[in-house]
């Protein structure tokens, strides 16, 4: 095609637009994570460590929440890991586009999150899938870490301020916001309700963190037949 260069430019620009909007959406989450980490008693260094080395929003929130509640190391780590099991599926989706030497594949894998996979998987050709994945992944990585630092610095040592401003409700609201897009699907709704009920029922009888882990058995609800037979 004669105008191949122009086509490439258009695709590249479209990817940049997609990545920019997704990166902007991540910024408030980063602030809330920094604040939640401070609220849970994590140091700035720990917060940065989570955002660089773990780099998975919901799992970082979960680990901070359970640690802040006095949960055990095992329950905090396992709950965090369970929330990242989906990276396995993302890896399967992205693997054909993420080729190269072993170290390159390993390095690109660290960017494997919802946002980078969403932008990458939305492209048609393998080279653009890789490009979209990398642009969104690097963008989110930089913004996520900067906003983590900002959130922690703004709210560390501000225990009273956090409750006065109602910011202790920001964590629960963030979990709900992460869950929200999934609730459109009946099987996801059933699993969410089952997981929520299991966890709440266990709070009075199990150590902190265990109710969250036990919620994983809620996935069994995805196999229940829908009411009224309409599945």
């Amino acid at each position, binding site marked *: 095609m004669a105008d191949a260069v122009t086509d490439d430019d258009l695709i590249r620009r479209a990817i940049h637009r997609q990545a920019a909007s997704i990166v902007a*959406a991540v910024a*408030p989450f980063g602030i809330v994570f920094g604040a939640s980490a401070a609220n849970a*008693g994590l140091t700035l260094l*720990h917060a940065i*460590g*989570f955002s660089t080395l*773990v780099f998975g929003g919901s*799992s970082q929130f*979960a*680990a901070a*929440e359970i*640690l802040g509640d*006095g949960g055990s*190391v095992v329950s905090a*780590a396992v709950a*965090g*890991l369970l929330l990242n*099991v*989906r*990276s*396995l*599926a993302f*890896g*399967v*989706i*992205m693997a*054909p586009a*993420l080729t190269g030497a*072993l170290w390159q*594949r*390993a390095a*690109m*894998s*660290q960017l494997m999150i919802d946002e980078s996979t969403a932008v990458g998987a939305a492209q048609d050709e393998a080279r653009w899938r890789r490009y979209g994945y990398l642009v969104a992944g690097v963008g989110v990585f930089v913004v996520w870490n900067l906003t983590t630092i900002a959130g922690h610095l703004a709210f560390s040592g501000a225990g009273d301020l956090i*409750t*006065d*401003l*109602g910011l*202790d*409700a920001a964590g*629960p609201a*963030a*979990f*709900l*916001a*992460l*869950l929200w897009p999934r609730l459109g699907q009946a099987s996801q709704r059933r*699993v*969410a309700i089952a*997981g*929520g009920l299991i*966890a709440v029922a266990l*709070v009075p009888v199990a*150590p*902190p963190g265990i*109710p*969250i882990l036990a*919620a994983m058995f809620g*996935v069994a609800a*995805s196999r229940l037949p829908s009411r009224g037979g309409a599945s």
Partner: protein
Amino acid sequence: MSDATLVLIVLALGTFTLKAAGPVVLGSRALPLRLQRVVDVLPAALLAALALVSTLSDGRSLSVDARVVGLVVAGFALWRRAPFVVAILLAAAATAITRAIA
């Protein structure tokens, strides 16, 4: 070593293993269908548990306080398709106001 450091190390190594398994080990093979189904719905169970437990738990007992108002308001905002940051700010504001009144 503090608990937080230990969680950080275990979670970072485990997460990296999950992230890298596809590109490094699996290549272009697909996950078994049954595993794929579990992977698809697992986050819904945990996120719902986290939202409810972080709202309702006070250590090892259940308690209903101003955070519940915040969660309900966040849910309403999300239902009305509000952006994330708006839902969070409304939740915080509703919680703060409820506390100030109560």
